[in-house]
């Protein structure tokens, strides 16, 4: 009897699929805030991963250095990055709202290097670790990380919350309206500056949430953003800039290609395939996997 079929669909394949989903959750969490900002303000925060890095340091210092309990440290970290998001908008983005997109991109790119250098000077170059060892979920031969499960659940919860906020609340409706037509809404008496500030704080808070979950899985150092920044940006583009659901779906597609590609070939090939898929989709669907509804 030929068992080749079952050999292909072995337990390790299943583990790789689930790991892909969990990695997708991590990526989706990061893409969510970036998408929100672009969808509403029409500006790409290239420095988004660096905001997450600052949040990771915030949590590290609050929890590991000042020994605050996690239930205080985590909300503090989220609030810290939300304030950073506000400041970023107030100081850097607002003066450039009517400037060419390339100027906005360069400005947030400058903030990226500023934050990396700031972290190097302020926190040093050492790798920091929270020292938390979360238990492992074992199902037969398969093992999964609780830290990743948490990130996955947070991504789903964040996605649902943002969706409900945008569709069921007055301010969410206003944000969606201003995202559709900046000029008209201002003429109708909507205070766009306030809405942009709310959106920036929300985007920052989502980065803070991502920081709280990433710090459970990765060491913190000033350049940790390099590992995630480019991939997150690609996912947001793949999903259609500003399209939450598109970004969410793209995260999982990207993560599965990395995970399964890495299982059946060299790990590096997983990334090569994911990037090749991205390039292909830029030709086939330049507006994103799911077209942005505007």
């Amino acid at each position, binding site marked *: 009897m030929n068992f080749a079929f079952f050999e292909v669909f*072995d337990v*390790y394949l299943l*583990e*790789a699929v689930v*790991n892909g989903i969990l*990695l997708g959750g*991590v990526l989706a969490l990061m893409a969510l805030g970036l998408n929100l900002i672009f969808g509403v303000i029409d500006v790409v925060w290239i420095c988004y991963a660096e905001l997450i890095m600052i949040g990771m340091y915030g949590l590290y210092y609050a929890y590991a250095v000042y020994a605050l309990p996690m239930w205080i440290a985590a909300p503090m970290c989220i609030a810290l990055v939300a304030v950073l998001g506000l400041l970023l908008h107030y100081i850097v983005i607002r003066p450039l709202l009517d400037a060419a997109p390339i100027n906005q991109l360069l400005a947030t790119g400058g903030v990226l290097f500023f934050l990396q*250098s700031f972290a*190097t000077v302020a926190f040093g*170059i*050492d*790798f*920091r*670790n929270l*020292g938390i*060892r979360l238990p*492992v979920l*074992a199902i037969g*031969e*398969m*093992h*999964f*990380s*609780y*830290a*990743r499960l948490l990130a996955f659940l947070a991504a789903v919860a964040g996605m649902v919350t943002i969706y409900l906020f945008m569709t069921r609340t007055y301010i969410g409706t206003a944000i969606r309206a201003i995202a559709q037509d900046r000029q008209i809404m201002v003429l109708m008496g909507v205070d766009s500056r306030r809405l942009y500030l709310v959106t920036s704080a929300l985007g920052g808070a989502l980065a803070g949430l991502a920081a709280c979950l990433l710090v459970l*899985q*990765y*060491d913190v*150092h*000033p*350049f*940790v953003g*390099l*590992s*995630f920044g480019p*991939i997150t940006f690609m996912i947001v583009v793949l999903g259609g800039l500003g399209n939450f659901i598109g970004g969410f779906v793209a995260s999982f597609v990207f993560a599965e290609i*990395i*995970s*399964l*590609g*890495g*299982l059946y070939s*060299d*790990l*590096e090939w*997983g*990334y090569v395939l994911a990037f090749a898929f991205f390039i292909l989709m830029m030709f086939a669907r330049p507006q994103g996997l799911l077209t942005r509804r505007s």
Partner: protein
Amino acid sequence: MSLRMRGARTGQRLMGCLVAVLAVLYLALPAAAEPKIKIGVIFDLTGPLAGGGSELHHLGVKIMIDRFIKQGGVEGYQIEAIYADAQSKPDVAINEAVRLIEQEKVDMVLGFFSSAQCVPVAARVEQLKKFMWITTCISSAVLENRNLKYVFRPQPSGAQFGELSMDFIAQNAKEKFGKDPKDLRVAIIHEDGAYGVDVARGNESGAKKAGFNVVLKEGYSATAPDLSALITKLKRARPDVIFHTGYNPDITLFHRQARENGLKFSALIGQGAGYGVYAKLKEGLGKDVNYLFDVDPISIWNTNKQVLNPKLPPLIDMVGEEYQKAKPETTIRSAHVGMAASNTYVFFTEVLPRAIKKYGGIDADALRKAALDVDLPEGGTMLGFGVKFAGEDTPVAGQNLRAFPVITQYIDDNSYVVWPKSQAQREAVLPLPAGTTYSPK
């Protein structure tokens, strides 16, 4: 006023000016005449490689340079060091080396942590006909078949790292694992830069020699955000021993995900870089750091002082004291600091004085000739090995042929040399004791 008086006053003024000029010249002369060697030192002080070990090498070099500056230089030459940051990027390393040579007018460059930087920088420095003294990076690709005239490396090569670790397991296969080498399943994983690829090449050739069953060999990017697919493959391949070459934080990411994904193995041999920074490993892995191995040149604090040149032990103590002053929180002193200090010391005691005295100066040719003359027997350096560089027209011109790494094991917050037997401080704990995180039992 008579003409004579006016003439006398003018004469006095002229004489005054002359005395002043002579005084200025007198004061200026010693400074202008005092010879000086300007050294460009390049390491990664920012970026991921800084915390991965580069900054510790910078510290080791600085401790030694400061020591020679304090003693008043070498053979009448003052020493001036200009430190540069390669920012963990090869392009920055090249630009900094060229800037130091062309704008700062340094006489030579020294340092370099990453092999990915060493390979292109060595070619550029050679092109500029300047002397390069590599204290750290180990990839064979830096020197092999390149016939570089001005580039010298007292360090062992990456291929040696890979071969030594395989030999260690081969010699212990039967006794410790109860298996013939051909039945031992080994996996080779490595970061995919020049460093990881070279060590893996040594692993591969060592595995072939030993007759191991290589069940997986794979590279990955040191900045990859996820290694779980690699770990799933390792689980499927079921290796007894894993040979890992990485920087940091990929090493901690690998171990963390290995634990979370339930990977089991009987031994893991780390090969340099991130595995040489115990404090960071301990912080990232906690108790799982216990029984890990690291291949590196010996930590100078672990060398057998009985076999060393008697003038070296006080220097080892001095390096240790300065290290503690710079990093008081250190528990286990990293081998990295001693490695850089020792290799720098060899330059200042063996190459520089010989170049000045025997070859009349510090230009690249004088330094090259002096380096080729170095002939230190085993025990002649703080790292225990001797120094003799391969000459021109040999496949590894510039490589120290007497350098060798050792294998260290971390046990209960101490590090012990366990291989080769001639250097061993204790017997290795092999395989992983039952009940430990990665142990199959």
